């Protein structure tokens, strides 16, 4: 632990400012580290900073998530793509086309650098967040000794029926924006830039946020019709973020790989909701399963959404919050104090052709600095005991190490390949 830890103030003041500035604005701008004296323009999120954007950034309305495989064994080619991705992501984050202001046009005899569909749309708070999968460290790129211990493939977990075409990946790109076309444009252009070096392994579109990552935001509902993420970590919870989310943060386990200091781990789970069954469940059953009132979002031990969970309260001799209720089993109190930053999105991929049922649910994304001590045990408990499990099926999965942010003039991959 000889390295100087990033200053918490420096890291999080941007987000804290948003908490105030965002009120009444509806949509807020946030930078993880705004440059002094140059206010971030509205509806843009700075790409550069100590932390990657798209983690504590107030959750945008839509998601395009891509898991990619590297198709070359030339580490230099991969590093080059990461550099070009950084430049493109930084440009797109300001609402400017790939290749600069002229990226859309150019000579008639060559393809435009930018694909064009985001032209004249606002930046819509676009963020692009990069992660490295465990398979990237398998020796193809000379990175075997750079794999952090925490970046281990997830073990088999209860409640999962994984579709092999929606699992894993050498890399991931999480693009979030308040306009789905802006988010898609970002991933499409990055995939284009990477062609020949990377290819998409699987991809997921999310159409509505199911989490709140800042106090400036109201709590959204997931496809079960319940408010989701009421008890989530927020950008403003700086001490908790250091302890539970940022690698090497204060109170967190020490970073075993220096390049990951200030980064975090992303676990993605495609959670299919068996919504036909759910919709047939009585309101009482739905509320018992979740542990909250459907309309208000209040825990069944209280009366208002943000009332603290009282897991000991009984009504007529029975627990107010059922022993198998989702909120009980997911609560930090039940999980040795484990907290995670959730950032999920509702998804639908149309129809399950086998059954004719709707293929819809939650694309669950969670950030934490030690997923095998955070996500894994919580999911084991949920998968085995949670009443909600009856209505869910985990069909896709991935774990990725998100490195720290890119400084001005820097690029993704610099820490890893240095």
């Amino acid at each position, binding site marked *: 632990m000889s390295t100087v830890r990033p200053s918490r103030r420096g890291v999080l003041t941007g987000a804290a400012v948003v908490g105030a500035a965002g009120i009444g604005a509806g949509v807020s701008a946030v930078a993880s580290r705004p440059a002094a004296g140059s206010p971030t323009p509205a509806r843009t999120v700075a790409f550069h900073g100590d932390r990657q954007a798209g983690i504590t950034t107030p959750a945008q309305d839509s998601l395009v998530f891509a898991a990619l495989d590297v198709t070359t064994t030339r580490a230099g080619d991969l590093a080059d793509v990461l550099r070009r991705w950084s430049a493109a992501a930084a440009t797109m984050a300001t609402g400017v086309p790939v290749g*600069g202001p002229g990226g859309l046009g150019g*000579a008639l*005899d*060559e393809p435009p650098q930018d694909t064009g569909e985001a032209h004249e749309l606002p930046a819509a708070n676009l963020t692009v967040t990069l992660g490295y999968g465990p398979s990237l460290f398998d020796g193809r790129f000379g990175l075997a000794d750079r794999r952090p211990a925490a970046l281990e493939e997830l073990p088999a977990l209860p409640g999962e029926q994984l579709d092999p075409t929606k699992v894993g990946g050498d890399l991931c790109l999480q693009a979030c924006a308040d306009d789905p076309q802006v988010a898609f444009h970002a991933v499409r252009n990055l995939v284009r830039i990477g*062609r020949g070096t990377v290819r998409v392994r699987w991809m997921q579109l999310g159409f509505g946020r199911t989490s709140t990552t800042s106090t400036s935001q109201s709590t959204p509902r997931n496809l079960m019709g319940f408010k989701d993420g009421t008890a989530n970590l927020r950008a403003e919870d700086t001490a908790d973020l250091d302890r539970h989310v940022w690698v090497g943060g204060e109170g967190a386990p020490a970073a075993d790989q220096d390049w990951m200091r200030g980064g975090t781990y992303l676990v993605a789970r495609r959670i299919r909701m068996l919504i036909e069954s759910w919709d047939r469940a009585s309101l009482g059953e739905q509320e018992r399963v979740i542990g909250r009132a459907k309309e208000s979002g209040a825990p069944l031990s209280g009366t208002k959404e943000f009332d603290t969970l009282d897991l000991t309260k009984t009504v007529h001799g029975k627990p107010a919050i059922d022993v198998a209720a989702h909120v009980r089993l997911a609560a930090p109190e039940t999980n040795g104090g484990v907290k995670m930053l959730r950032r999920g999105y509702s998804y639908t991929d149309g129809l399950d052709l086998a059954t004719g049922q709707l293929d819809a649910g939650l694309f669950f994304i969670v950030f934490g600095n030690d997923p095998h001590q955070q996500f894994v045990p919580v999911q084991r408990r949920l998968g085995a005991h949670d009443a909600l499990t009856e209505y869910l099926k985990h069909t896709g999965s991935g774990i990725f190490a998100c490195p720290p942010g890119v400084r001005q003039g820097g690029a993704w991959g610099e820490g890893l390949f240095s």
Partner: protein
Amino acid sequence: MIRSSRPLLALAAAPLLLLVACGGGSGAADESASGGGAANGAVKITLTDDGCTAEPNSVPAGPASFEVVNSGASAVTEAELVNAGGRILGERENLTPGLTGKFSLKLDAGEYTVQCPNATTDTSKFTVTGAAPSSTEDPLFASATTGYQDYVKQQVADLVTATGAFAAAVESGDVAKAKELYGPARAPYERIEPVAESFGDLDPKIDARIADVADPASWTGFHRIEQSLWEKGSTEGMAPVAQQLVADVGQLNTLVQTTTYQPADLANGASGLLDEVAKSKVTGEEEAYSHLDLLDFAANVEGSRKAFDLLTPALQVTDAGLVTTIQGRFDDVATALKPYQRGSGYALYTELTPDQVKDLATAVDALAEPLSQVSGKVVGAANQ
């Protein structure tokens, strides 16, 4: 058959090729490497956060050298010279305060702009007066285009021979022989498909699939016979189709004797062949009855590579990095195809697993992307 909307070959004009500029495009050479002799225009571009202006903002046509100076702009770190079509002819990037960069170009008369992204005013006018210096035909491009002309003639000559043998087998009712000769007749056609496509309805007559024709009764060409041979195991009624095919291929042969090509034709042809592969060969749609799609695939790639290789000496001057990338990716495609070689032919498309198809498609896309940049490079170089 090509269904691409890519511009067809320009066939009428004889090649009029201009001198390769001393570093067009984003990889413009620095002054020391320009080899352009004394520039009669020396231009200084100063970057400020407010904007960038060229001093002087007008030079006579001919060689010009640009010096880009950042004497203190924090938000602006690059300048570009852009032609009226919006193409960047020369640029210097990553010039943080205190740094200077240079590039040299040969400029034709016309209106240009100097652009410096992120400045308050990011565009200023730049004028080149007078007429361009008299240009000479660039020998690198000239040998590329005549080389391609020779290649096309040779392939069509092979096509005529192979199609003649194939048609004879069809006419004699020898189904087995006809099936054997079908593939060898297809390959030379697929190598030069964009050229055939440029002759209006000749390509549909030779290479249409049943889904391409308005009236199946008027369907002619290779695939009509392919269907009969593989679906029906018969040559019945195919003799007139075979005779028509021989006539159409003969007409193609006549046409290519006098056809000339522009550098952009080679580039677009190389690119178009790859799009063909991605669209109909890697999907198994082209040879729906015989499943010889990989043979067409390989022939398309060969034809594409030939056109690209011919352009390489000229492209090496403007963008050597692009040449290296594309060559590597052509090699990757060849490597990806190799496991499916069977003697002088290829495995049937139906033998491939979905994962194998995906790997082939990925290799083709990886090549097609940088190959799509070539046209702009050769046109830019030829016009400067």
